[in-house]
């Protein structure tokens, strides 16, 4: 279904026949799709299609809210481990897979403490290592120049766009295998959004990204691969250029041309 370029791509993760639900009703039906390493994969679809639900399966966020049913697998490579398996500790999954939320959520602590939080949680004590990591992550998130002189002031004093980049830096500090982005720009103004999009494109050199977005243009601009979901089904997955110019499914075409959604 995709062009020849795919074959040279390495799979970072793979969703295999994933069905998910809280109670009786399934929210996701038999989803299967690959996540390629050092690529940006976008999940698009109308509200309620299950794109955020799918994203939150990757770091087992659903486990926080009572009994859930995962059928199928999400395999993480190169370990080849099903992170949804019952004997896998969700905390260890979250240590490997970072997440950035819809609304910037810096902790009410200093900028420095925000970035070092993930390291402290992992038991890292060495100050010089943490200092380096804080600087490195802030540079990667394109925030270093703006905050290097006030690392110890409150993170909540930053602007919305800066806060979101801080949250990205916070996730990067723990060197995730995969970074999940849940509509990372939906609460931001266009200039901050452009910043984040540039950043996403830049980041794929070092990390694999999976991004939920409501904004089709954003997916077209930033994502290498796009998955279109509708009512819990994966309708179509492919390279973004193909999905947005030459969709195979009628539903996809109707959605991207604005006939519904």
């Amino acid at each position, binding site marked *: 279904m995709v062009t020849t370029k795919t074959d040279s791509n390495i799979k970072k993760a793979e969703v295999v026949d994933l069905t998910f639900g809280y109670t009786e009703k399934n929210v996701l039906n038999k989803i299967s799709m690959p996540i390629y390493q050092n690529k940006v994969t976008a999940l698009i679809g109308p509200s309620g299609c299950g794109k955020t639900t799918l994203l939150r399966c990757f770091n087992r*966020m659903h486990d926080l809210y009572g009994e859930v049913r995962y059928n199928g697998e999400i395999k993480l490579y190169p370990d080849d481990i099903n992170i949804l398996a019952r004997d896998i500790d969700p905390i260890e999954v979250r240590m490997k897979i970072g997440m950035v*939320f819809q609304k910037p959520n810096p902790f009410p602590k200093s900028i420095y403490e925000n970035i070092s939080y993930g390291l402290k*949680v992992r038991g890292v004590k060495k100050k010089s290592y943490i200092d380096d990591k804080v600087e490195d992550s802030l540079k990667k998130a394109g925030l270093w120049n703006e905050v290097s002189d006030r690392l110890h002031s409150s993170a909540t004093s930053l602007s919305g766009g800066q806060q979101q980049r801080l949250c990205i830096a916070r996730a990067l500090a723990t060197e995730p295998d995969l970074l999940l982005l849940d509509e990372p720009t939906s609460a931001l103004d266009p200039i901050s959004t452009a910043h984040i999009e540039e950043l996403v494109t830049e980041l794929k050199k070092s990390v694999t990204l999976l991004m939920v977005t409501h904004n089709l243009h954003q997916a077209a601009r930033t994502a290498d691969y796009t998955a279109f979901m509708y009512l819990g089904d994966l309708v179509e997955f492919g390279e973004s250029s193909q999905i947005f110019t030459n969709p195979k499914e009628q539903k996809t075409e109707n959605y991207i041309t604005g006939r519904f959604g």
Partner: protein
Amino acid sequence: MDSKLATTFSKPQSIKRRVRELKELVIRIILFICAASSVLITFGVVWTLLKEAFPFFMEVSVKNFLTDKEWTPLFENPQYGIFNLICGTFLTTAIALSVAIPLGTITAVFLSEYMSNRYREILKPILELLAAVPTVVYGYFALLFVTPLLQKIYPDLSSFNALSAGLVMGVMIIPYVSSLSEDAMRAVPVHLREGSLALGASNLQTSFKVIIPSAFSGIASAYVLGISRALGETMVVAIAAGLQPKISLNPLESTQTLTAYIVQVSQGDLPHGSIGYKTIYVAGVVLLFFTLIFNLIGLRIRSKMEIKFK
């Protein structure tokens, strides 16, 4: 057809409009009186206290009040060292807080971060029942149960002592601390909690490193309420802590708090205007002064945190 609902514009002087405006005004006045009454009563209380306490200082110098070694206003050679009573008050309060703050905070963490909604709805009211037990019951509980129990461990313990009164008072104020702290913790936005967990933090790490710091202004006001409650508590200390004012921080001996002194003295028949009578009001003023200070500290912490975390 729709004539019943049609609105016609009235003139400012029309009766209908005047009546409506008058009604609004009357309601506003009634609401204002209700709101003002509690403020006025507070001022009234302060005024009464000050009015009766002031003449005390005509007879006793401030220097004696602050430096006398003992508090014996009803004896032949009266001494007026207020620090004897302050010492007892702070000793019992400190013991109470050393119980209530850790236990209350941990209880709040458990209720807010670890319990499912269903069980929390059952457990929280039960915990709050602790605050519904009459304080006189707590007083005898301290005197007749806790003290003998402690005497088994430490036989030299006096039968009236600050320790058991303080401990029981601490248990009594746990629900004040835990209930308000829990409300504050649960008010922490879910995206902060998820943000921490998504970084691989455990529930415990999230509770202590993100939830408590984020809810700190609320938790601090819970502590301040606990402190005020302990400072002002009367029955428990009057019954179980004894009636011997002394400058000592030994929790194993008997002591006397400001409140217990007021109770003791007001039980006798002191002639109006006598020095003993005035000491009641002086003790009251001192107590009010300390509760006021702690309330101001609490207010300050809260406003500071609110600015910081906005």
